[in-house]
């Protein structure tokens, strides 16, 4: 619980942050809200030699709607997403998901950009991004969510690349995100998100593998006229979840199906 020594610097702009990362080299890590990084550092699972702090960069904390897309600045805190009227009007699913991230301390500090860059298997936002075909905007390019999340804690980001924004399509149709967990502030054992978008359903599954998964088989079944119960049976297709102290792999597969059915039934 005592982190190793590290250098610390505070960036004043995106360009400054990228520059500092380059100067500091591969040992450097970016710190945004710190809600995942600091616990790993305290356990010495992560020992970055240098932290570049993004909290001094202005103008990365916003929710905007433009050209049918909801644009969220990377440093926007969970708590801001919970409170944002604009988000509730244009992407209510994400506002509801934000409300159930961690506990009040985590929601006050943690950022959407941090969640994306950290790519925890149990993260909720990656699922929403994936199922809605969101784009992750960096200091140099736009990366579709399906290409961004590569593996556990692994993204398409270059070592010196910064997430600056996440763009979601405006999605105001029926939706539901069901998170199964032991305690209200825990990571999801499994979670399922559903969103009505255009003439179809989007379905995503959290923590049933090393990355979030888009449940194409469920979406296809629904498009072919399957009932929620029938479609939900396809939710575990192709999944290969881990067993851990909280749940066995078989239970996670089962939960994927149950939660998918319930989410579709409860979507409003």
């Amino acid at each position: 619980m005592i982190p190793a020594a590290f250098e610390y610097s505070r960036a004043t702009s995106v360009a400054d942050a990228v520059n500092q990362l380059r100067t500091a080299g591969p040992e450097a890590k970016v710190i945004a809200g710190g809600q995942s990084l600091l616990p790993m550092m305290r356990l010495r699972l992560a020992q970055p030699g240098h932290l570049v702090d993004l909290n001094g960069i202005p103008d990365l904390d916003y929710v905007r709607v433009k050209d049918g897309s909801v644009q969220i600045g990377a440093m926007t805190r969970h708590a801001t997403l919970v409170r944002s009227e604009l988000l509730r009007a244009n992407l209510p699913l994400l506002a509801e998901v934000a409300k159930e991230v961690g506990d009040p301390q985590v929601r006050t500090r943690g950022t959407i950009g941090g969640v994306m860059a950290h790519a925890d298997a149990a993260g909720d936002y990656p699922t929403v991004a994936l199922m809605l075909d969101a784009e992750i905007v960096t200091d140099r390019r736009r990366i579709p969510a399906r290409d961004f999340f590569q593996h556990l804690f692994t993204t398409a980001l270059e070592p010196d690349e910064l997430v600056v924004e996440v763009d979601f399509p405006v999605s105001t149709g029926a939706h539901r995100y069901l998170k199964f967990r032991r305690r209200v502030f825990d990571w999801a054992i499994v979670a399922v998100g559903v969103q009505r978008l255009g003439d179809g359903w989007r379905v995503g599954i959290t923590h049933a593998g090393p990355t979030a998964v888009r449940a194409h088989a469920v979406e296809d079944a629904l498009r072919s006229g399957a009932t929620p119960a029938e479609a939900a049976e396809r939710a575990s297709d192709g999944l290969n979840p881990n067993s851990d102290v909280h749940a066995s792999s078989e239970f996670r597969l089962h939960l994927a199906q149950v939660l998918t059915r319930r989410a579709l039934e409860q979507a409003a």
Partner: protein
Amino acid sequence: MAVSQLIGARVQRREDPRLITGHGRFIEDRLPVGLLHMAVVRSPHPHARILSIATEAAASAPGVRAVLVAKDFHAQLSGTMPVTPAFAPEKKYVPERFPIASDEVCFQGEPVAVVVADDRYLAADAAELVVVEYDPLPAVVDPEAAMVPGSPRAHVEGPDNIGWDMTFDGGDIEAAFARAEVTVSERIWQQRLAPTPMEPRGVLAEYSPYDERLTIWLSSQNPHFIRLFISGAMGIPESRVRVVAEDVGGGFGSKISPYPEDYLVPAAARILGRPVRWIETRTESVQTSYHGRGQVFTAEAAALRDGTLLGLRLTQVLDLGAYHGTFGAFQACACLMAGGVYRWAAVQGRTIGVLTNKVPTDPYRGAGRPEGTHLCERMVDRVAQEIGMDPAELRRKNFAREFPFSNNFGLVYDSGNYDGSLDKAMELVDYSGWRQRQAEGRQQGRLIGIGCSTWVEICGFGPSEATAGATGGIALVEAAQIRFLPSGSVAAYVGTHAQGQGHDTTFSQIVADTLGIPMEKVELRHGDTAEGPSFGYGTYGSRSLAVGGMALHKAAMVIRDKAQRLAGHMLEVSPDDLTFEQGTFSVKGDPSARKTIEEVALAAYGGKLPEGMEHGLEATSYFDPPNWVWPFGAHICVVEVDRETGAVQVHKYVAVDDCGNVINPMIVEGQLHGGIAQGISQALYEEVAYDQDSGLLLTGTMTDYLVPTMNEIPALTLDRTVTPSPTNPLGVKGIGEAGTIASSAAVINAISDALSPLGIHHVDMPASPDRLWKMIQEAES
């Protein structure tokens, strides 16, 4: 008699203002000049031989003052860490335990080296540079496997893994079973629990070469015993060792016994001639603070078809861990309490303590009594289910009703009214209504369950005759000292120590009422061995009020009696002609002739004392209770299990408890809230899990070890009955552990009841969704 004003009143906690405003004082708050910081290098293996320890790199790291290993401590510390003989006169294998390993490590987290440095970060950095070469040995993880002849041994030098094996016979068990019309048997698992107090352990020690005195600041429930142990090990007279525990941020039993660091920090301070501090990290806390429970029971109950209970036979296999916990054997009391509140023809309990390669187990809130209650209440429900009788009715049929009641082992329950608490609980929960809703729900496939736990506990440790032998010589009586100062303020010292129980408040209520003075005049002092009586016996086993509170009351009565004699002298009447009310002695029939106790106190330090009376107004008293005290109650829990996911929802939780007369109802309710939360948590959430093959800890962080928050604990409906104890002058019992003792059984009985339509009779803890889902799957296939 003073009119009792404070006793029984909902007085706000006096300790809260300082704690809430951040003025509490914990081990980490103290910053002596020249302080050094210690980090501990621990074994990553559950069992291994140490081949070599290379300390050079660590020793030359920045800011490092010393890297110490076992041989450095051999000159400082003698003997083995203590193990009380409690409950096991025929202890078999008791491995010696030096606070730091030299040749063999026997659990993951056992200390192998310490680093002392200028700050905590440097110490932690350098600890990573200590290179220990290990030769891993087979680890024994499962206690039942460890009992099998030929099992790997937890200590390579041990003859086997059996720490103790003894049987308590309470009546003719064969005869009881011979009469049985029905028998049920069950295997009941008590998972290991990590106490996880909010303040982890911490030790700060300073050795003064000037007067050869050692001062230890320690987060402890038990400062005087620690003084005894450390002074013995370090060869310093007990009078020159001072142990100070100021605010203690929770203990739950984990801060009773001495730990390796309690020896290593003072020894390092003496070696280095500087104050040294070690603060446990949360990871170390889950890994190395003594665990609770860790037992597996097999039990068989015999009954008649009309619900008459006959016999209960059980075997407790207790996972000791790698060493005997100092007070670990106390948990064998599960056998002696397994009969609960019922009349049995016979109860027989065998307890087997088994060594494994895990951190030792030791008392944890309830210590043996939650396990005994859980077992008894589960078996009673199993009998009820087997003969098709309502479990509440079966309980009623077998309640002990005549008090004092001698249980099968000759333990004498002082007072009780088991019908009273069950009646009230059933009414509050709407028992018949829920039975009806349960029946209706079952028609729709819903799994609703109702669980009762009619519990009793033994607490208030304890009578000298019974406890002196159990601890190895020191009887668990309690001491108090009260000094009535000339200006009218009162300092009261007691040998118990609080870790959140609110003794500052409740004990001051007792002293203030007994002396007839305002509570603000009473200063309550505890936790410092340099003050007050020569010895104190600490806080655990719900003993503080029933033993420590009575010692204070006794000392206050000595003072009041002396004040009355002096007042009589001052008023020129016989002391017998005085009344004492609201702090004033008045002459009977002439109320204008009076003296306040403050006036008398001043006079006690002045001239003109009566013939033969010594100066001063102070008293030291020891209270040796004639019996233990026996709180009891009835808890009823209503749950619903999600058939698809195994998730448990608690619809209702009612607890009607009886701890005799109540000093402060708010404190009693607080104790029950916390205690019940811990029991519910054992039933549903917490478990220290080890990999069964490697023996490595799987739940080392608070992400994996599931301590619940207020969100996970349902609203509790509390009420009480009052059946005073005849054991002490105030008629009080204990309430610190009651909630924990009662509640796991209520929750698990409710879940087992919910699942009974599926043919499931018993559910182990924690009743996690995954576990229940698998059971439901199996039952339905």
